[in-house]
Structures are given as C-alpha cells and as structure tokens.
C-alpha cells in the first residue's frame, strides 16, 4: 500500500514510517501542511495519515477539507492529541474517515489503516459473508459452519459480523468497542476478551480449524490461513 504520512514530530514520524515500511507498505512523509497538501493532491495514495496540529498553526482538518473539496476521496486517518469525543466528531465531519488519539499503539494504527483501505475497496450490498466453511447469512441472520447451525445472540452476531467484514485483518479491542458497542471510551477491563472467547467457544471449539485468532499485542482476526 502507498501511504502518505503528514506529521511534524520527528520521532513519531520516524517511528510510524519505519513501522509501516516493515509491514510492507511504501511511505511518503511530509513534516508540514503545505508539503502534505501538495503530495496528497499530486500523488495517488491508498490512505493518508494526517496529524492535526501542524507547524505554523495549520490545522490538519483544514487540509482535509481542502482535499475533499477538490474531489480527493482517499481515506484519511487523523492523528490528534485532542482526545475529546467532540474533537473526534469534528474531525470526522471535516472529511476524515478515522480518528486516533495520541499516544497510540502502533498495532492500533496498522489495524485501522487496513480497515480503512478495505472499506475503501467497497463492500457494497452483501447478503452473506464467508470465511472458510463459516458462513454468515446477513439477511436471514443465520450463522452456519459446515453443516451445523450456530445460535448466536444479537450482540455476538454483530461482533462476528464485524470480524468477518475485516476477515484477514487485525481488529483491535478499541475498534471493537467503537463499532460493535458504540463505546468511545476504555472500560479498562478486558470485557471484550471475554466476549471473544465466548464467541470462539461457539464457532471454533468443536471444529477442526480455528478461525478466530488472537494477535498478540494487537487484537483479533478471523482468517482461514494458519497463523
């Protein structure tokens, strides 16, 4: 993936770009708003990581708005030290697609970038999701693995759906809290883990191949490939 990183803090910039490159992506960097805007407008990127506070009191949100007005639809992830929910809403309204507060775990950033690009490729109107022999019927609200029907409660269904929509990608606990439970705060206990293990009981325990995997220090992933 070709990624543009606009971040003025040198340490963060180096840390993130190195990490992204090690994950197999190509990274262009800009340490100020003007260069960032220029690069974003003139090159094709699959995703842009934009810091909100840029030198010269330039607001990253203003750059995002300018890009959107000019018709660029590249997904943009906003990095910000402002953690308030209202700031998050402001960021998303300006045209950002996701919002990550500093300090952040690199795994979180990586997982969200993957999720953004997957979304950009468009899921469209799907009626079913499938990973290996696990099949989820979105219309009939049914889950089947192999020849066995699995009974799931509504929240478990929502959880599995999110995981399957991001099949093959790392999904962090924070992403799950935000998208499955609409909780934009950290409950500080690993309740999500308990939900995952319960789900795992239902869809993996009695089957040969485990699909729901734990990614150390990152989150979870549903995938057919052995890890």
């Amino acid at each position, binding site marked *: 993936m070709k990624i543009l990183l606009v971040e003025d803090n040198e340490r963060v910039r180096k840390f993130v770009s190195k990490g992204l490159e090690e994950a197999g992506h190509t990274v262009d960097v800009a340490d100020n708003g003007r260069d960032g805007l220029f690069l974003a407008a003139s090159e094709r990127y699959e995703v842009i990581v934009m810091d909100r506070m840029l030198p010269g009191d330039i607001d990253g949100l203003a750059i995002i708005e300018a890009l959107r007005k000019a018709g660029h639809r590249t997904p943009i992830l906003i990095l910000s030290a402002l953690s*308030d929910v209202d700031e998050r809403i402001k960021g998303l309204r300006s045209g950002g697609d996701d919002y990550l507060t500093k300090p952040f775990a690199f795994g979180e950033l990586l997982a969200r970038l993957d999720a953004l690009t997957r979304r950009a490729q468009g899921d469209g109107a799907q009626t079913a999701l499938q990973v290996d022999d696990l099949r989820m019927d979105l219309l009939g609200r049914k889950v089947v693995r192999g020849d066995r029907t699995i009974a799931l409660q509504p929240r478990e269904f929502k959880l599995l759906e999110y995981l399957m929509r991001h099949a093959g990608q790392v999904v962090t606990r924070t992403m799950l809290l935000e998208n499955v439970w609409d909780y934009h*705060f950290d409950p500080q*206990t690993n309740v999500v883990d308990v939900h995952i*293990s319960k789900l795992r009981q239902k869809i993996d325990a009695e089957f040969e191949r485990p699909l729901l995997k734990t990614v150390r220090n990152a989150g979870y992933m549903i995938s057919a490939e052995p890890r």
Partner: protein
Amino acid sequence: MSGLSTPLPELAGGAHARSGLGWPHVARVIRSSAVALALGYVLFGCAALVLFAAPLRYAWQASVEDFRIQVLREDSQRFEEVFRLRGADGLAAFIGERVGMQIAGERILLLADAHLKRLAGNLPAWPAGVPAQPGTYTVPVMLGGQRAMSTLVRTTLPGGYNLLVGRNVERFAPIEHWFWVGLAGALAVLSVAGVLGALLIRRALLTRIHSIQQTAAAIMQGDLSHRLPARRRGDELDTLAQTINRMLEQIEQLVHGIANVSNSIAHDLRTPLAELRSRLEELSLTRPAPPETFAEIDAAVSDVDSVIRMFNALLRLAEIDAGMRRSEFVEVDAADLAAKAVEFYLPAAELKNLSLSFRERGAMLLRGDRLLLAQAINNLIDNALKYVPEGGTIRVEVQRGSGDAIAIAVLDNGPGIPDAEKPKAAQRFYRGDSSRGTPGVGLGLSLVEAIAKLHGGALALADNHPGLSAQMTLGGGTPEAEPRVASGRAVAVSATPTATAFDRVTS
C-alpha cells in the same frame, strides 16, 4: 453607569460633596442611569400634566364661553321683542331702566342709530373695533371709565338701529391667569421633586454599588472568602449580590478542587511514574539477556499505558468539573444505556459466576451526555464485578423519580463499603482497603459522581443489607451549585440511607 469608571476615592468624595460642580461633573451625574430614569419619569409626568390640562382648559373655556354667549343672545332677542312692540323710543327707555337697575355693569347695553350715534345704554359711545356685521365679538370697551374686555352680541334692528348686548369678561381673566400659574407651579414642583429624588436614589445606589466594588476588589486581590453584603430586602441588588455570592462559592470550590487535584496528581501519578523509571533504570544498569530485556520493555510500555489512562481519566474529570460538557446534552434513554451495559458485562459476569440482570421498566428519557452516562453506568457495574465474590448477584435498575429525575442504581450483595469509608469512596484515587491487589486506579467512582453532578444529580452509596447500593440520581433540578462546605469531593455521598425522592431500590 459611568460613575463606576472613576477610581474609588473620587467616588466616595462625589457622593458627599456637591461643591465644585463643573459641567463634566454635572454631565456625568445626568448620564447615570438612576438620574436618567428619574428625569425620564419627570418629563413623562410633565407631559401627562400638560396633556391633561390642555383639553380641560379648552373644554372649560368652550362650555363657559358658549353658555355666556347663549345668554347674551337670548337677551338680545328679548330686546328685539321690546323694539317691535314699543319701537325705538320704547326700547331706549327700557334700556335706560335696565341700566339703572344694574348694580355693577353686569350687562353692557347700547342702542345706537344707523349712524352709530348713542341713543341709550351704559357705554359712552359705540366702541371701536366692532365689525359691521351682526355677530359675536370680544373687544375692549370703556365701561365706567375703565377699559374692560367684553363679549358683545351685535344685532341690527329694522330701521337701521344697532343693538349691542354684552358682558364684561375681564372678571374671568384672573381665573385663567391662576389656572396657568397653577399648572406652571405643578410642573415646577414635579421637576424639582423629580430631580431631587433622582439625586437621592443615585446616592443610595452608588453606596451599595460602592460596597460591591470594594468586595470585588478584595476578591481580585486574591482573597476568595469575601462575600458581597446582601441586605435582606429581596430587591434586585440583593438578588444580584446573592447570585454573585453563589458564583463565588462555586469558584472557591473549583479553585480548592483544582488545588486538590494538583496534589492528587502530583502524589498519585508520581508512584507509577517512579516505578516506571526504576524499571527502566534497572534495565539500563543490569542489561539482562534480550528475552528478559524485551519482557521488561513490554512491561514498561504497559506501565506507560496505565499512566496515560490515568491522565485521560483526570482530564475527563477536569472537563466535567468545569461544566464544559453541559452544552452537548441530547435526549438519552437511560434504560437503553443500562441494558446495553448489562449486555456488555454479562459474559464477564458469567465467567465469575455472578448473576447480572437489568429490570426493564420502559424508556427513561433525559437530557444528558450519552458517552458520559454510558461510562458512568459501566463504571458502577465494573466496580461491582470487581468486588463481588463468586456466586453473587448484581442488579441494575432504572427508575423515574419526582419531576424529571431519573435514578440509575447498581445493587449487589457483595461485601459493600464500610460506613466509615463511604464518604471517602468517591474521592479521587481513593481505593478502599479491600481493593488492594485489584487493578484500577481508583478514579471510577469519582468519575461517576462528577458525571452525576454534571447532570444535576448526585451519587449515593448506601447499604444494600448486605452489599452495596450505588445510586446515581440525574436531572432532578437545575445543575446549580448550592453553597456547601468546601470539604472535598465526597459531599453528596451518604453513609446512611437518606430519604430521597425515590423509594430505596430494594425488594
């Protein structure tokens, strides 16, 4: 009021000394709102007086005048009759008789021939200034050697004779004169009284405002304990003073709160930061083998995450304390939030063999911050999950109270909180003795209390016999700070069940 822009000493001087009045001083006085108001009233009063007096005067004049003239015309007609019956000589004699009978010129009578030569009457000659046509005129005549303004009715009789019947109206002049004098007098009295009153009011107002100014100055010097004097008169200035006093209470509390928080932060964040530092320093000194080193580094990252979480929570608390989030209130269904929270924690509860339930009672709508309320409910349930031992019961209830108030309660049958600790439980960083060894930094309950307060309510911890009842009441009135003892944060927490607007959530 422009008078307030002057420094204090001059203000005090101005309130007493009226000497040395230059135009600037007078202009300033006039511009003061009390005086302007009073002058406005005075002008209004004068205008009202004039508006009242003018129609009155003209009405009086018209009716009196009309009556007078009517009488004169009737008289005139009577004389005409006499003329027809007895002729000019008869009329002249008649007039002579009448004049003789009068006491003091009540009637002016004059009969003249076609050449205006006097024939009979009490005027020496045909008065000048009487127009040629028959009609009613008011002209000066010589009556009894004196000039007198008179109203005359002139009639023409057959044969060219001219008759004047009239009345001396000079007598009424004084009445009119006194009418105008009276009106002017009233206006003058009104004006003087108004101006005096204005000055007196201004002085009274300025004295009170002066005392407010002095208190404000003392407060700005840094002594927040001052309060504005409020006489128990219940007038607008008193209300203002009381409102400002309440504001000062709140500010004093916030300032003390901030001082407390700074102390708490300094004290309680130092510990994990110190631990982190020594961990890293030890790593740097001992330089163990890579696997162990990386394990230590992972642990250090985890430590930093803890500190970050603590910062976030403190920041959130500070925002809530400052009331910054109140403007974002929307309509929220507390029952829905509670149900979602229970659903979220259910697997965790099952893991510990705890029964966690929520009693549906329909939607419970209130205006609030969705995120904060969700966080508060989550915190209460989280706490219960942490401290209730295996096999216990946790119940979540949402009830409507009096007015718009809503109560959200989490009840458990765990060890509860000892009465002595209840007031302290919601203090920042407070962790009860029984909590040693469990994860968490002790901010959960203080966050819940802050959120409850933000929504115009409170957190109440009570005995559930056995266990703990943690009840958050919301929206039971306007979120104004009541003056209260600045004893720290745990004011709304009761050690014993208090009689609130709700039934104790038991059964």
